[in-house]
């Protein structure tokens, strides 16, 4: 029962720690960007490892849409104990994943309070998605936006080479 909270608390501490480290340095302008990239890179490596474990028993994926569906249903349920509520695509490599009650944001607020702080807590998850896709063979760019807590949207753009 308490295991769910473990990751949420750890994640909060990770974000706080990364920002505290940066604050001791003098370069305030670059502070925000480096913190977000550090968190994103962490999520990237975690995503790669997780995918290796979770796709061990699945048959090979046939196309990108299958991969995105796996991400939305199986991966999201294993990590955040719920599925993505809405997946939209333009069938040209862009996908929007909407989660109406994102597990890492539920404790913040149910409206607009603390909206500016939200992106910090989404960087790790963006990296997670990017790492997962990269290990499945899809290079992508993942961004997140929040307009009303705790719902958020992840936008994934697959880079076609």
């Amino acid at each position: 029962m308490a295991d769910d909270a473990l990751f949420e608390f750890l994640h909060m501490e990770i974000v706080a720690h990364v920002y505290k480290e940066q604050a001791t340095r003098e370069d305030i302008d670059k502070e925000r960007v480096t913190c977000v990239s550090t968190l994103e890179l962490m999520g990237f490596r975690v995503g790669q490892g997780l995918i290796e474990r979770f796709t061990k028993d699945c048959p090979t994926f046939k196309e990108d849409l299958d991969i995105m569906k796996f991400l939305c249903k199986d991966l999201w349920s294993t990590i955040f104990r719920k599925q993505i509520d809405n997946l939209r695509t333009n069938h040209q490599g862009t996908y929007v994943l909407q989660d109406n009650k994102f597990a890492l944001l539920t404790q913040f607020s149910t409206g607009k309070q603390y909206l500016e702080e939200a992106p910090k807590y989404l960087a790790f998850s963006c990296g997670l998605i990017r790492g997962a896709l990269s290990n499945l063979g899809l290079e992508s760019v993942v961004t997140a936006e929040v307009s009303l807590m705790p719902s958020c949207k992840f936008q994934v753009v697959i880079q076609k080479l």
Partner: protein
Amino acid sequence: MLISFHYTVHTSLDVVEEKISGVGKALADQRELYLGLLYPTEDYKVYGYMTNSKVKFVIVVDSSNTSLRDNEIRSMFRKLHNSFTDVMCNPFYNPGDPIQSKAFDSIVSTMMVQAF
């Protein structure tokens, strides 16, 4: 001696690619990770397996050893996949590097000794 093994494995990668691209056109439910016997040469038989993360495992077996059945090869690949997953989850391992984990090496050596 080692070079000829490397050569065999390299050429088998082409066969793996062929199998993967052929799967989409063939039966829709033929999506297993195990690829089966890739091709037999005069001395060796080569078996292939591809994970969802596009990592390919290749096992080269002496042709004179006819006692190895399909099921045993499948279980060898299963064990390989499990130990590879463990290596991936090791924080000291960066994906793409040669594997230096002693645990992985020992599992592979035990498997090879058991099979022969």
